[in-house]
């Protein structure tokens, strides 16, 4: 009997389906804690999602095995809670909130995961964490930055990274410091942002912080993510000519924005970026010298390694899990922190009861050598109040620390040299 090719394809699918189910059944016999990860593994920010997933895998490898030379909590022992190993179940939300919610439900109800770590996009984290909250299950959020997430009064939601609210305040503090100590005389501000949950929220927080500090907010420029042309947006900025611009432009949009400013021969005196394309070392490499002198907040970059010596050996494991091998970035390292902190809390609580683990998370201050501040502690609502970032400035492809002064290794260069004087 000769099979038609379409029947062969269908047979292959059926076989793969059974392989998937059989693989799942194998876990059920061991002493394991299943943890779900929920990241955008496909779609417009797939690269960031893949890095976040690799960061969680790295943390789990350190937790499950004995690494006495790595100076992070739980590294020296094997597993947690008297021999429990963590097993990850990965899910892809494609950057879509409805799929994020469905996948969170599936992870809890079908896969039986104990907690979820995710989910990069704030717009997805919102509905997905609501699913966890209703089920009284833990949701550990590494890097979603919308301040709104930790203002919902949730009991089972914990976020590691600084928010766009704290970043906005840090930017304004930095500008005041420039005015007071360097005589910068910066008065007018503008914001350029992608018109999404992330960008819009960042712009709202920026406006609040700028106006609260008594500065003038003169330009509010939104653009659609994935734009092929930002000429009119940059023309608007150029027309208002603010002294300082805050940027919330992800990935390729950041490259386009910087190149359009070069094309239109305009620059603000100071340019500060939220956690966005600025922090991506690959993008910095692609921009080359054009990316120099821009600034932004950074929770981690290889240049900060001297402040965080425990990161290096963990980063070596991380590099084996991502192709091409790249160091941690500000976002992905927060997902590793979320995994370590959850494991520490389970271990300390001595139980898998989510209520007890949540209480333990709130009641303690956690050692976190992968965090810039070295500690993690949570306020009601789940925000990590020890979250810290430094203001860096890109120069010759390196992120130089410029603020706060006690962590700085370089003086900020401002105003940004004009394009024809570089």
């Amino acid at each position, binding site marked *: 009997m000769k099979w038609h090719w*379409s029947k062969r*394809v*269908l047979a292959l*699918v059926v076989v*793969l*389906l059974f392989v*998937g189910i059989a693989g799942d059944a194998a876990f059920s016999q061991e002493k394991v804690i299943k943890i779900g*990860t929920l990241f955008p*593994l*496909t779609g417009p920010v*797939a690269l960031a*999602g*893949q890095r976040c*997933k690799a960061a969680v895998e790295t943390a789990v490898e350190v937790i499950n095995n004995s690494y006495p030379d790595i100076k992070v909590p739980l590294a020296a022992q094997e597993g947690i809670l008297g021999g429990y190993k963590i097993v990850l*179940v*990965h*899910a*892809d939300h494609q950057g*879509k*909130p*409805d*799929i994020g*919610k*469905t*996948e969170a*439900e*599936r992870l809890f*109800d*079908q896969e039986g995961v104990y907690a979820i770590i995710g989910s990069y996009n704030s*717009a997805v984290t*919102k*509905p997905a964490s*609501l699913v966890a909250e*209703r*089920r009284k299950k833990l949701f550990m959020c590494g890097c979603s930055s919308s301040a709104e997430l930790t203002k919902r009064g949730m009991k089972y939601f914990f976020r590691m990274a600084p928010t766009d609210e704290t970043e906005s305040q840090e930017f304004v503090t930095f500008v005041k410091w420039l005015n007071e100590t360097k005589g910068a005389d910066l008065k007018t501000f503008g914001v350029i942002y992608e*018109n*999404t*949950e992330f*960008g*819009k*929220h960042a712009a709202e927080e920026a406006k609040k912080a700028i106006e609260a500090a008594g500065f003038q907010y003169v330009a509010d420029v*939104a653009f*659609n993510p994935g734009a092929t042309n930002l000429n009119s947006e940059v023309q608007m900025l150029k027309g208002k000519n603010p002294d300082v611009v805050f940027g919330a432009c992800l990935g390729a949009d950041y490259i386009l924005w910087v190149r359009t400013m070069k094309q239109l021969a305009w620059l603000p005196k100071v340019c500060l970026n939220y956690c966005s394309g600025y922090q991506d070392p690959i993008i910095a490499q692609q921009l080359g010298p054009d990316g120099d002198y821009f600034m932004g907040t950074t929770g981690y970059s290889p240049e900060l390694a001297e402040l965080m010596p425990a990161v290096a050996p963990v980063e070596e494991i991380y590099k084996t899990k991502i192709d091409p091998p790249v160091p941690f970035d500000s976002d992905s390292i927060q997902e590793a922190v979320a995994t370590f902190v959850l494991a520490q809390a389970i271990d300390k609580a001595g139980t898998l009861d989510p209520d007890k683990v949540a209480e333990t998370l709130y009641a303690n201050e956690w050692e976190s050598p992968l965090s810039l501040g070295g500690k993690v502690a949570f306020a009601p609502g789940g925000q990590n109040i020890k979250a810290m970032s430094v203001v860096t400035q890109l120069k010759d492809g390196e992120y130089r620390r410029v603020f706060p002064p006690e962590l700085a290794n370089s003086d900020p260069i401002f105003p940004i040299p004009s394009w024809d004087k570089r």
Partner: protein
Amino acid sequence: MRHRQSGFGLGCTIFGILAILPLIPGPLQGPFAKHVLVMVLLFASMSQAWNLLGGYCGQVSFGHSVFFGIGAYGAGMAVVKYGLTPWPGALLGAIIASIVSLVISYPCFRLKGHYFAIATFAIVEIFNRLFMVWYWVGGALGLDYPIIEEGWRNFMWYETKTPYYYGAFALFVLVFSTARWIERHRIGYYMRAVRDGQEAAESLGVNSPQVKLTAMAISAFLAALCGAFFVQYNLRVDPPMVMSLDMSMRFVLITILGGLGTLWGPLLGAAVLIPLQEYTRAIWGGLGGGVDLIIFGLLIIVIVIRQPRGLMGFVSWVVGHRARARGRG
């Protein structure tokens, strides 16, 4: 007459089976299986709403996500902005979607064939951008539902899927019954006449602009009701979730795969595509790299190559084959 009664019997049988499906013990009792069933009924209803215009009337629209989105925002605004139940918002959203569809399609129906389809592409982009910067409806931040009381009054449940299933079933019965009524009614014959040859239909006295506008208004109304259900199910709405070409393509793809211009084609299309989409993502999505999407795409290609007339074509072939076999016997 016998044909009409047998069609009625088939419809009642399908409705009956769907009504008792969640009560049957077994694999369909799991929450994920119920989610898949809810999605099948919702997407079958959405696609049937599109089929009224695109299948029966021959006007291929890629703009139906706009009407779907208006319905979603109707319910969302009622709950999030005004603290009401979603019901008045859903109804108002459906009425507004109908009016918007008439305003949009009146000039667009002067365009024929591909030009009409291209115009509807543009409409999706316009509405998407408009809602992204319209802060009264939440703009890019969208509308997030607060945690409020569960139940039929608020049409909202957090953990159980069974009431959502019956909500989707009610919507399905409404949309498919409307489609069946139209199919057998004078307007249905006019719609098919316009699809098969507008000039010929007009020469026989069919007022084709009126027929097309009627089909559009009914189609938009039903699509908006589906949108209202969608937002109540996801408890969040933002423009990319509902008003996107991606969403519009789902309306079209399911109908074409199931069988364009047929009553049960959208159900068949949804019953095959949605479980494929959901289960391939559940099993392979975590691998990353879009393996699930590749497999999903491959399976669609296999189905389309095997049966270009859609799954209803396959059903007709099976029924015809059996009839021929009986004839020989």
